[in-house]
């Protein structure tokens, strides 16, 4: 096919020409045919539609009520019996996790650290040793008794 170099203006006018062309024309009897076709199609009356819509074509099974009550009872039991238990278990788990999160590291730290009581005794003994020369015999004995809890 031979290529033609068109200017943009020529190209635009060519496109316009092609777009405006009506390659297919309706037959002379198109309108009449369409109307005839519409008439041939049976019209759905509102009454027929309403009759179908308002119909209740299916009936429940004979034991539907019994089964449904049983199901409702069972579901309710699950909700009112097991759910509080699950909720309680969940809250206990949350509490334990919380305790572990906050107390766990502290306990570990205490276990690894030198014993507090020991450090306290050492500090007290040092203080008493330092203070002993300042106390007379009776005071020192009383203080010792108090510390020993006798």
């Amino acid at each position, binding site marked *: 096919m031979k290529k033609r170099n068109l200017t943009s203006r020529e190209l635009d006018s060519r496109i316009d020409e092609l777009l405006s062309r009506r390659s297919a024309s309706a037959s002379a009897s198109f309108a009449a045919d369409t109307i005839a076709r519409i008439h041939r199609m049976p019209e759905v009356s509102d009454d027929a539609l309403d009759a179908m*819509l308002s119909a209740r074509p*299916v009936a429940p099974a004979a034991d539907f009520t019994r089964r449904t009550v049983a199901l*409702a009872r069972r579901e*309710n039991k699950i909700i009112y019996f097991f759910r509080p238990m699950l909720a309680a278990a969940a809250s206990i788990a949350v509490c334990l996790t919380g305790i572990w999160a906050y107390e766990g590291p502290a306990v570990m730290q205490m276990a690894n650290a030198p014993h507090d009581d020991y450090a306290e005794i050492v500090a007290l003994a040092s203080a008493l040793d330092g203070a002993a020369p300042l106390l007379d015999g009776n005071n020192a004995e009383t203080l010792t008794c108090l510390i020993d809890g006798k």
Partner: protein
Amino acid sequence: MDAALPAIFAMDDTLQQDDASARTPIDADSALMMRVREGDEKALAELIDRWKTPLINFFYRSINSYAQAEDLAQMTFVRIYRSAPRYEPRAKFSTYLFHVARRLLINEYRHRQRKPLETVDPADLHAVSDNEEARDVSEIEEAFNQAIGNLPEKHATALLLLKQQELSYDEIAVLMDASVGAVKTWIFRARAQLREELGGIL
């Protein structure tokens, strides 16, 4: 929550019941629900008896499967029973019931979108019949259910609630959390689409 529906129908004394011959005042259902709230299982059974047929048919038309319709109806009653302790008779019971039902239906549609399944309904298997007339009826039913299934959920639900459950436009609007105008538009469009799809059948 489900029970917390607007109270615009609290003064409505119109009737709503399974079939026209057994119409009873709105108070009957609410009274039953109040007894259910106290844990009365007989009242629950009575409530189920009154509403099982409309509910199953609502689901059946919406999802075109008897087994799933029955499952959804059961789940609706279970939800109703579960939320009974919080129930306040502020709206007509039917509004409350179908509000719960519609939520389950929407969940079912979402589930189907995630996991599309080709289900064979046992009811369909029983529908095979040598009787020509019965077969025609079954085909019409099938086509009708298909056409309903092709509607958008809102359109189908609004139309079914209006024509099958005989709820008013106002009730449907409350139940579907939409304006009355929107409900009318959905119903108009649903009808138009059904007419188009069922043109050669009905």
